[in-house]
């Protein structure tokens, strides 16, 4: 069983489109995250969310919005996609950081 699963694994889309990436964790963790990893492997936090609080990195454009229907899911919706949005997006979850984060396998987004 995959602990943190993301879909799709690959996404190729045109500029201006709206797309969503889904994330589900079956670990019973209370906090979930979205990170963006650029071509140089730099992981940058976009959002963190638990059932009480959404923390948004202020540098993230408001075209990006997290949606959490329940504790086990944190989806990422992106409006009006731009070329610079091309990256690998990782979902992660944690129960505190005692055991670190568990990452999903990533979604490679390519905007053409």
């Amino acid at each position, binding site marked *: 069983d995959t602990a943190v699963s993301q879909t799709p694994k690959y996404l190729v889309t045109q500029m201006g489109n709206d797309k969503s990436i889904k994330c589900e964790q079956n670990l019973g963790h209370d906090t979930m995250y979205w990170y963006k990893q650029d071509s140089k492997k*730099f*992981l940058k936090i976009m959002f*963190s969310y*638990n059932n009480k609080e959404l923390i948004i990195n202020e540098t993230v454009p408001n075209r990006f919005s997290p949606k959490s229907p329940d504790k086990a899911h944190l989806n990422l919706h992106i409006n009006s996609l731009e070329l610079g949005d091309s990256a690998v997006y990782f979902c992660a979850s944690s129960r505190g950081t005692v055991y*670190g*984060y568990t*990452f999903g396998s990533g979604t490679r987004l390519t905007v053409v």
Partner: protein
Amino acid sequence: EDKVVQSPLSLVVHEGDTVTLNCSYEVTNFRSLLWYKQEKKAPTFLFMLTSSGIEKKSGRLSSILDKKELFSILNITATQTGDSAVYLCAVEELRNTPLVFGKGTRLSVIA
């Protein structure tokens, strides 16, 4: 300004060599430092360090934290080609704030 700085950015060694990867940080309310290994897909957790001077060890990998000098090192002895990966350092500040990652060290181990 980068809060977490890793060095070197890349490193090529031969099998059997010992390597030391560095991570320095500058945060106001340090809580913990974590090391991850990333091969082709998701980062995988290696160590979490919270106290100075206590070495964490797992097989050929070990890590230690110096909270006074604000850095950590990750050592890999008797490197193997399977150690080739990007090694990521991350710092947690206040409780429940997201991890802040460094830009990673790309290690290549050649036979």
